[in-house]
């Protein structure tokens, strides 16, 4: 009995991990390729949720989660071309400041357009309710979320590790100068990575909208967790971020199971321990230009 309860928390933690991963993956990729800490990443998550809500009003829930990430990816490309690219080689503090400013502007714009009150987004009827296996209970919607995250994850892995595009991106993370010396212009790849990264964040926002609510400050809420995941996972490693996201999700759930009061602090304790033992994160690689 006790074991089933714990298992529920672990599976639930994995779902949360999948959702954290969608946000953290983009954050890690954009930083790895461009060297900018994108504090506006949460803003794209929020825009994704609002866009999915607005599109969903006309095209239904699935239309929303399909179209919103694409629109946000396009917006991300505009953001990269006009703002982000100027800060790839600048002092990292400047990148922090400008993206932080962008996050504030977006939050206020969302407040102006849609108001401060949270907006309810309905869950599709087919995904409502719980799945019951013996005594094991789980939300149908969250199982859908888990499956979708796994699918997206597989897609991103394939893109980075099995395509020519991925080879250039990975080389660009390690040695952008060598990539340039080989006659490959890194610019378009950085653009594509930003589009991919913010698109994933938008997808996360769209998927989480029916679980919680859509409100202007939602980006700020998730960004803290995403940072913790990236720091625990380490830079330059795809699986590091995946592992960290799952760990953070499961740690939170199991801590709430045993020591409820410590539930929300657990991920910070985890980060602290990992940094003590492995300052580059669990699977972080040594990247010369970042040291």
């Amino acid at each position, binding site marked *: 009995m006790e074991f089933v309860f714990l298992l529920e928390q672990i599976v639930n933690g994995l779902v949360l991990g999948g959702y954290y991963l969608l946000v953290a993956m983009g954050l890690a990729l954009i930083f790895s390729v461009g060297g900018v800490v994108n504090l506006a990443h949460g803003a794209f998550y929020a825009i994704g949720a609002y866009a999915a809500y607005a599109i969903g009003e006309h095209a239904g829930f699935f239309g929303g989660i399909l179209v919103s990430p694409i629109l946000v990816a396009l917006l991300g490309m505009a953001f990269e071309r006009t703002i982000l690219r100027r800060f790839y080689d600048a002092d990292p503090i400047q990148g922090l400041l400008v993206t932080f400013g962008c996050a504030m502007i977006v939050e*206020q714009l969302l407040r102006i357009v849609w108001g*401060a009150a*949270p907006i309810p987004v309905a869950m599709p009827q087919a995904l409502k309710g719980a799945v019951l296996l013996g005594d094991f209970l789980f*939300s149908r919607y969250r199982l859908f979320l888990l499956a979708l995250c796994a699918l997206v994850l597989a897609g991103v892995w394939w893109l980075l590790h099995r395509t020519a595009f991925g080879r250039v991106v990975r080389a660009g993370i390690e040695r952008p100068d060598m990539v340039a010396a080989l006659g490959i212009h890194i610019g378009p790849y950085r653009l594509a990575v930003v589009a991919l990264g913010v698109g994933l964040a938008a997808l996360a926002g769209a998927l989480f909208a029916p*679980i919680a609510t859509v409100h202007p400050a*939602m980006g700020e809420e998730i960004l803290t967790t995403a940072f913790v995941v990236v720091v625990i996972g380490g830079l330059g490693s795809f699986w590091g971020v995946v592992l960290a996201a799952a760990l953070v999700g499961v740690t939170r*759930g199991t801590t709430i199971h045993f020591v*409820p009061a410590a*539930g929300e602090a657990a991920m910070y304790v985890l980060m602290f321990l990992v940094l003590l033992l492995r300052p580059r994160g669990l699977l972080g690689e040594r990247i010369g230009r970042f040291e």
Partner: protein
Amino acid sequence: MAAKTNARELRSGPTRRGAMLGGAAVMAAGTLGFPAILRARTEALRLGHLTPRTGFLGALGEYAVLGLRMAEEEINAAGGVLGRRLEILSEDSINPDTAATKATRMLERDDVAFLWGEISSASALAIAQVAARAKRLFVAVGPRSDVLRGKNCNRYMFCTDIPNTVMVNAVGRALLRQGMVKGKKYFTVTSDYVFGHDLLRAAKAFFAAHGALHIGDELVATDVTDFSPYLLKARQARPDIVCLNLAGNQVTNFVKQYAEFGLPFPTVGFNLNTADAWAAGPGNLSGTWPTVWYHTLATPGSQAFVAAFTKKYGKPPENHAWITYVVLKILVRAMEETKSTDSEKLIEYFEKGPRFDILKKREAYFRSWDHQLIQEAYPFSVKPADKMKDKWDLMELGPAVPAEDEPLEIIYPSREQNTCVL
């Protein structure tokens, strides 16, 4: 060994990796607060208003400011206060620390006559201390913790919203009628700050007095948006009833996720603000809840207010819009009748117990010994989806508590129960 070397390397000056950590620190510590600062104009009479505009109570504070601006405009259109234009300096209180800092600044530098506002009990406690030190009036408009008008009451603070004990009594009476108390196993989920703890205390007293069993409680941090681990724990406890002592958008997120998981136990709750019910959307909320006011209240005063508000803002007022609106009218009347903005004179005036029209059936008044505004409360329950006229028409307002032939004070903590010493 390798880790040690790495640690030393990482400490050697600012790096991009360091910037990533810095980003995490900024996000963990920072709040994106945007103060809505109004600039001073000469000879206007200024009052300082603080209320949360961001965070888990932000949506409620937004309504409070709408009510505030509407009352302010009406008052100025009618000639202002004491022949002067009324100017309300309203800012986002963000958290107790910031609230105290802003309260100090408003009193010392912005030259406000006194302070009012708030929804968060924790921030209200912080502001109350600042105001008491400066010997200036603070009218706590929205906070509901018993301790504000009990253990932590003070001469300079007045509270206008219904306290937790009243909310528990308002819903409790309905639950007793439905036979949902005696011998029932209650599992509570509680907001982990002064308000939640206070409400849990009131709830436990109610359970103990009426033979309900309290089998478990989960404290939930105010910034939590995902309640799934707590839902799983609630189910594991196998209660008869799940009871919510949550605040702000915690209520919204909890009821949505409760519906998502499809748990079979009925829910009841001892605190609900209409904005959070609206945010949950139809089909997620169920059960009976307490309220201080709802826009379907059928008094001529309320209906006129609702019509004017809806015309101005395109949506009906929420309970925080209503209470902020009526409290500003009360404050203005107090200043007019005492011909003063002096805190001591205003306190003396309120303690005499003048009756105020708050757009309800019965008039309200401040109790002199704990500074609580005594007024009616209501239970309201969720309407079936097919009975809703529009998306705002989510709740069915129950009869006022206490009943018309009962004294208003019977649902409030009595002098014996209340430890307040002014």
